[in-house]
């Protein structure tokens, strides 16, 4: 593969990390949804590029899934849910944005550090790509734990999963990638439906469990 190809790959992966930061930065629900759509699209581009590089047509399916499912369907669905549940005001995050961003930086640094010792034989491309993917994963995780709101946490989870897909596609010739992405889509569908069915506003952050435990005599 020519340097240009890998540079494009890097660009896409890097921009995915960038969008993750943007997601982390958002404090408006609808904006968050839109930027997640962007996140998905960038992923789709990157996957498609990999498919082209690796001459692996089946990866196009993954790219397509990413584009349609995560880029369109899910955001729309979430949009309706948000309206339905009337939580489109603001996203009260546990930690304020500033520290969160700093911590995110630290996470990126960490992922780079842990990837450094990976030998060159793996190919510089794999190394950097993995570092990007890991950062996306960690940033998604960070988003999950810093947001109180169910929907934004689902988004965090999905961005985490985007990172996984990025890594999977980055790994040359890795089998089962398509199946995995399908599986994840199902998983996310579960999540969204769950939120919708159980009217979960704050359920991630609920104290109800404690209440229930009390009623079951589980309190100390």
């Amino acid at each position: 593969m020519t340097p240009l190809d890998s540079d494009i790959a890097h660009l896409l992966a890097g921009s995915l990390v960038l969008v993750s930061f943007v997601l982390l930065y958002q404090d408006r629900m609808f904006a968050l949804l839109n930027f997640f759509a962007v996140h998905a699209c960038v992923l789709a581009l990157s996957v498609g590029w990999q498919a082209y590089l690796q001459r692996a047509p089946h990866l196009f399916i993954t790219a397509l899934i990413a584009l349609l499912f995560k880029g369109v369907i899910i955001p729309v669905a979430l949009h309706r849910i948000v309206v339905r549940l009337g939580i489109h005001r603001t996203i009260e995050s546990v930690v304020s944005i500033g520290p969160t961003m700093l911590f995110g930086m630290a996470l990126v640094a960490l992922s780079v550090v842990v990837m450094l010792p990976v030998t060159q034989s793996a190919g510089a491309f794999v190394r950097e790509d993995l570092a990007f993917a890991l950062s996306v994963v960690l940033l998604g995780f960070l988003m999950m734990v810093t947001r109180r709101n169910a929907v934004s946490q689902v988004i965090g989870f999905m961005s985490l999963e985007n990172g996984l897909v990025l890594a999977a596609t980055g790994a040359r010739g890795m089998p089962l990638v398509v199946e995995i992405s399908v599986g994840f889509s199902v998983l996310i569908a579960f999540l969204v439906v769950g939120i919708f069915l159980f009217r979960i506003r704050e359920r991630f952050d609920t104290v109800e469990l404690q209440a229930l435990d009390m009623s079951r005599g589980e309190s100390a």
Partner: protein
Amino acid sequence: MSLASPSFLSQLAVTGVGLLLALAALGILAARRSLGSRLIYAACMLICSGLAVVALAALLAPHSRSEAIELTVGLPLGRTLLGFDPLSAAFAVIINLASAIVSGYAIGYGVHAREPQRVVPFYPAFIAGMNLVLLAQDAFSFLVGWEFMSLASWALVVSEHTSEDNRRAALVYLIMATGGALTLLLAFGLLAGPEGGYAFAQIRRAAASGAGPVVLILALVGAGSKAGLVPLHAWLPLAHPAAPSHVSALMSGVMTKVAVYGFVRIIFDLAGPPSWWWSVPVLVVAGVTALLGVLYALMEHDLKRLLAYHTVENIGIIFIGLGLALAFEANGLGVAAALALSAAIFHVFNHSLFKSLLFLGSGAVLNATGERDMEHLGGLIHRMPVTAVAFLAGCIAISALPPFNGFVSEWLTFQAILVSPQLPQWIPRLLVPAIGATLACSAALAAACFVKAFGMTFLGRPRSDAARAASETDRWSQSAMLALAGLCLLAGILPGFVIDGLAPVTQMLVGARLAPQSTQPWLRIIPIDPARSAYNGALVFVMILIAAAATAFVVRRLASNSLRRSPAWDCGFPDSSPATQYTAGSFAQPIRRVFGSVVFRAREHVVMAKPGEISTARLHVELHDTIWETLYLPIIRVVDVMADRLNRLQFLTIRTYLTIVFAALILLLMIVGAWR
């Protein structure tokens, strides 16, 4: 198994254990009707007698056909070896003898159990477990037997499960027993080494270099907690009385001996050559145990609890002997070591006899009156004459008074103390006399304790209607108790044979033995040298008989043999109400005042009626179990606090849990990142 095979005796013994286990299984069905349980107990008696005989054969002819046999069952990676060597054989004789007689007692007594199906199946299992411990020649089967023994006895303790106290007793017992077993597990782990040579033979060959001290501590904790060494005795006075009396007899009279065996096996046999200072912790703990045990017993008004506490004291005496033996062996004083060791194991034998006897007696009393509290007993000597005689014999024996057996072992211990100036080191030299004083003190206090026990239970006037309505127990129980009493006397007047029987053990453990005693003229025993000390129980006994008979004869010739019965004089203030008698509490009061103020922080305060006020004056006594309060309660508190603190983690929110996961991930990543 053929008589010629080199492991004939071991095969017999293993078969016996197997039979006992089979009995346990049978017991589940048999317990439904009283005849069934009677049969089970009878079978136990027979098997135990058989085992005792086998063990005796193995003991007296050490190298004849008592090789260990290897079984295909047991530890997957190890070998299971079962068999007798002199040490285990000697203890097996002691244990099975007592068990056999106790089982005989149970034939009559056992049918009174409220729920026999909770007792009968576990009783043979219990005995089987103890025998397994003795037969074991490798760490795994040793511990299996050990835990099995604890488990079966736990089930027996909790057999009267409806009372809250019994459940608590069982709980404390189970926990402490398991803790002890785990400690022994560590000890064996250290002895066996990383590639796990669990067979005793391998461990001996490895001879645990440098591991000695740790093993000593672990053995003291592990075996000591089972034996009831202070401060690990807490479970004992709870658990022993909670069980049915024949089981209490086994637990107190026999199981504690298995614990002693465990200690002897590990320290004298497996842990390699001792160094002199090992004896110091053993002696100190033993002395404290002896003194505190008897003091606790004196403060007790519950007959069975009193006996249980007194077991603690006797364990202390035994360990004093063991500690001395360690010191002597470490300094190469073979004969002295043999003397101390013989004294200790002799006392093991004696205690197994008279403590079982006393518990059986208390069982008979409990059965006849439904009372364990001495404050509600009294005057039983008139209604239960046979029990009274047997119990009296037990009391005299346990108070270490001639001509009974308790005195002989104590005498031997004193002799061992008197040769200890030969020790080169200063610390034991300073320590041993103090230990001797402790021993003497505890012996005297034991006498006081059993004057109280016998006097309050059997003498005086009945303190309750139950005691007034009591009646003698059944023939089985009577004969069992009389048999034990007879053995106590016999061992007291013919100690030579016992000492000779222990010779192979001392030969094996400390490589020396006492001079043969049973061949001495006039059946006397001479531990070291005739000019130094000698004791002739038989002769003393005969002399007392003659003297008493002569006196009685003469007095009868001179006296007017008329005898008149009249109300008690009592210095002219006779009072018909039994309440005016001395009670157990008032009997112990002087000693409580002398010793208890320190040990138990005992406080007495009298509440007098105010002038002009009509009310009775009251005497309040408060006793503290200092050890429980200073050692056990803090541990319990710590666990409680920890449990409360950690319990909060049960009620976090999902997001918090996610945060924890995230933190863990970051942490691990940083570790990996930091690692080069």
